[in-house]
């Protein structure tokens, strides 16, 4: 496999871009004269670059741009709506769980073991919820690379 030093790689890329300074050009030409493999690779990359430069994007329909900001705006609003729904839902569900638990504990017609099991179940779920939320909160606060894909 062809090897190039870091400086030679930089010259290679600059030559390809046509941005070599005059003193760099002399070094580059010496390198090309001494290394046929570099010349071959250079020609290949030059052809490739020419082809890529002629490729163009398929343009999206013009109305894409007309509606772009409106779509972002709708997403921001919907995000707020979901946040409110989540908070409201969490409060309502917590209240329902609490009422259910109280009803269960006060229902003397049920066997004692069922009432205790119901209470244990609700406490277990509460501990789990607190633990998950706390973990998420700590990760959010302390992980400065949280946006980075691992």
């Amino acid at each position, binding site marked *: 496999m062809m090897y190039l030093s870091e400086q030679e*790689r930089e010259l290679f890329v600059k030559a390809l871009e046509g941005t070599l300074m005059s003193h760099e050009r002399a070094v580059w030409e010496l390198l090309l004269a001494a290394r046929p493999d570099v010349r071959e690779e250079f020609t290949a990359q030059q052809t490739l670059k020419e082809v890529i430069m*002629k*490729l*163009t994007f*398929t343009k999206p329909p013009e109305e*894409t741009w007309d509606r*772009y900001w409106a779509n972002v705006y709708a997403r921001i609003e919907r995000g707020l709506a979901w946040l409110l729904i989540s908070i409201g839902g969490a409060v309502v569900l917590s209240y329902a769980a609490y009422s259910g638990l109280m009803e269960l504990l006060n229902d003397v017609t049920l066997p004692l073991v069922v009432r205790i099991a119901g209470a244990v179940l609700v406490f277990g779920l509460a501990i789990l919820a607190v633990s998950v939320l706390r973990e998420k909160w700590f990760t959010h606060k302390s992980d400065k690379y949280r946006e980075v*894909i691992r």
Partner: protein
Amino acid sequence: MTPQDLSTEAEWIRRCPRGEKKAFGYLVKRYMKQAYYAAWSILGSHEEALDASQEAFVKAYRAIDSFETEKRFDTWYYRILKNQCLNMIRRRGKNTVALSELIETDSEPPEDSGADRMERERLRRAVWSGLWKLDPEDRELIVARDMLNTPYAMLAELMDCPLGTVMSRLYYARRKLCELVKQEVG
């Protein structure tokens, strides 16, 4: 971008945390095309590029408090966008797209013979197909430099690395692409 543009932009950003969505709207309109094409170069699909770039703007809006106004908004936003795109690729588990959805080439020089045209078209197809076999980050770099004509200084800022590293990465990315094209055309 002129210093005046940047100062106007800083003013828009300062107004965003006060809930002025209109100010954020100016930012979105300034960068939406750039964002879309950058996302497209990673994802290769119109729908996904639109989705990723818009979602990244939403995330940028929510995190605008943490943005340091002396920095450039576009480089900050671009990092959010890139993570968004890579997450989407990870979720979909593949990064291939239909070529017909993507390609649009320049017009042919009239003096070309049919054989030349066919040969060039074959090469172009091979390059295009090779591009989509590259790692998203290599593809993104080649597209940014050779199709979008992004300056090196900007690429270095976006990638958060020295200019020499950008050149090195570009060199290796193009080399990989050369290999893929050679395999394709035989």
